[in-house]
């Protein structure tokens, strides 16, 4: 398979790193070559963050260039727009319908765009209220795994490989809640 480029973008603390881990392990156990590039250090302190996962028969570079992302999963709506230039012409965008107000807006030196939904629609984005989905199933901290469930519908990785990755990577007492969140994310993507 040609290399697939998946980009997970959000705000520091939203759980993009765990989501990247689940994807990487599901892809590895499916027999693909995998590279995962993360940002650590200063960039993590509440700023924009991204994790790039690339998988296929033989992955070379670990970075996502403009126009190469097959799927972008945005954990926050403004961050989806910030990553739009990376989307491939055929690429798909899955966006958590949530906004986290940046400090630059709070203190009055920048403005929120007023047309976020219109712009996401133009990009063909699928909007999911993953926070609400997670709350509905009683595990509000599994928003990231709901989004992983949605992502799973777009990739050639079996449902079993994803479930196995969840069992291996999340704390034992949260396995059931996360499997449920994953399933809910898959359903939300199908609607």
């Amino acid at each position, binding site marked *: 398979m040609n290399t697939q480029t998946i980009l997970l973008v959000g705000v520091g603390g939203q759980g993009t790193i765990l989501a990247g881990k689940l994807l990487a392990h599901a892809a590895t156990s499916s027999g693909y070559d995998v590279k995962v590039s993360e940002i650590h250090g200063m960039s993590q302190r509440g700023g924009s963050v991204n994790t790039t996962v690339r998988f296929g028969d033989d992955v070379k570079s670990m970075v996502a260039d403009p126009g190469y992302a097959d799927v972008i999963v945005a954990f926050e709506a403004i961050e989806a727009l910030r990553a739009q230039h990376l989307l491939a012409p055929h690429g798909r965008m899955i966006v958590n319908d949530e906004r986290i107000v940046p400090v630059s807006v709070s*203190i009055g030196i920048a403005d929120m765009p007023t047309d976020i939904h219109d712009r996401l629609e133009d990009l063909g984005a699928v909007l999911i209220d993953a926070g609400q989905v997670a709350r509905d199933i009683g595990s509000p901290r599994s928003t990231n795994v709901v989004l992983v469930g949605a992502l799973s519908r777009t990739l050639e990785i079996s449902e079993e490989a994803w479930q196995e990755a969840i069992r291996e990577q999340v704390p034992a007492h949260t396995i059931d809640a996360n499997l449920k969140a994953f399933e809910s994310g898959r359903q939300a993507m199908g609607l």
Partner: protein
Amino acid sequence: MAVQLLSGNEAIAQAAWEAGCALGVGYPGTPSTETLENLVLKEDCHCEWSPNEKVALEVGIGASLGGLRSLVTMKHVGLNVAADPLMSVCNAGVNGGLVILAADDPSCHSSQNEQDSRVYADFARILCLDPSDSAEAYEYTREAFDLSERFDVPVMLHETMRIAHTKSLVELTGERTEVEPKDYVEDISKWVMMPAIAVQRRAAADKRTQELIAYAETSPLNRIEMRDSSLGIICAGAVYEHVREALPEASTLKLGITWPLAPELLKSFASQVDRCIVVEEASDYLSLRVKAYGIQLDSPDVSPLPIAGELSPARIRTAFGKEMPESIDVATDLPPRPPALCPGCPHRFVFTELKRMKAIVMGDIGCYTLGAVAPFRAVHSTIDMGASVSMAHGMELARASERASRPVVAVIGDSTFAHSGITSLLGTIYNAGTGTVLILDNRTTAMTGTQGNPVNGVTLSQQMTQKNPLDHPEGKAVDLIALCQAMGVEDLREVDAQNMKAVRTALSEATKNTSQLSVVIFKSPCQLIDRARGPIPEIVDCRACGQCIQIGCPAIYKDETGRAVIDSSQCVGCGQCAQTCPFGCIS
């Protein structure tokens, strides 16, 4: 044999352990930090944080002399601090294998500069290995210890952030080769760098260089891959992967050894291709040295490669005029979201108050460097570790405070103070400086991920295995008050950084005291290690004055009417906003 998905740093830790490494020592610094944090979890390998990289390298040199295989880790700027021992141990050599990990950060993802550490390998004339993914990081690290002992040379293991923090598949043995510690052998003519001996050791090192070049000429770590012979690319590290992606038809000379270069190998490759080009990032390290061997280098077809910043396949495609996919324009109208002080951060009031006082602030390296961004803009210099204190003394000698009619203060964190602020403060005290030094003691090395340090006494092993190590530190925690007193500081205060009025009073008193040096220690734990959470405050009858917004907390913002709203998903209940409300509306 097992195949695992490992970051470069995890692979290096695994390989060092398998190679019988018995000591890991370093100072935390992105992107090197996780190497020791992984190595410490393995058996029979003692690991510790040093106060700084110079100390770490000297500990590693001592352990090598004592017979152990030792790994010393640091980020690129840390190597500047460790340059002094490096430039002499390069001539002394080793007893047990000595490997120095230097982790570079092209594009400054989490650093104050961009520098190519391989220049130090050339400067010190030590072997430098340059892996291009985790599998090579694993292979080269195992090799590095053998090569260090075989050639009696400290070995630099060079990585960039894209190697350190990229996970890729590694096939590992999972078994440790037990290496007996070598006997200590007294040898003054090898280890005492006094002039007559140093001259002889330099001659020995030069002879060793010829042996290293002969090794590099035929080592499998350097690899010619012939494809289309019309274009040949010389490259190393992560750049090799970008080249393979952007120019899949090009022949490559992939250098796994980037010091010394192998002149005959370079010439042989250049003679087999029509055009020979070096592709490298943020540096001209390779191209200058290849040219020095008289090899004619060509240029990319369309435009030169960028001279600064990370490379990517797209930047290489652009330079070589390769087709790029269609892409949407970058959205340029979005509100920026740079890193910010966390909700509940104990540094926040120090910076809101310094801003209010219009202080000139000499800053340092750590989370508190974020005091330079809006809404604070209250850090006015950041140069290197420890510079806040010594630069503030220089500003005093320049009479900057009097001429600007603004107080000058130094702001430095606990770990940075231990790293190199103590000697700076000693200089101010010795020379009868009368400035103001603020030590922000948040009980941890926060920016790199809450590591132990000499001020909190938490050991590396404890940090990785215990839940609340600060409660019972296994190391000896230095008492900053006693230390400052012993050094001769008389105007000395300890203040609760979460109490806005106390912060204001302390800063006012310390800066008004212009007849002697004032030191204020703000002691409050970082919110990343202090998990105690208060109730989320309620806002009643908000007058929309905006005071609470101006503390720059990511958990509070204004609604359409200008009234303050708390984002309960981010709020930690610290109560900072309540202290700032002039009408008592937040409780």
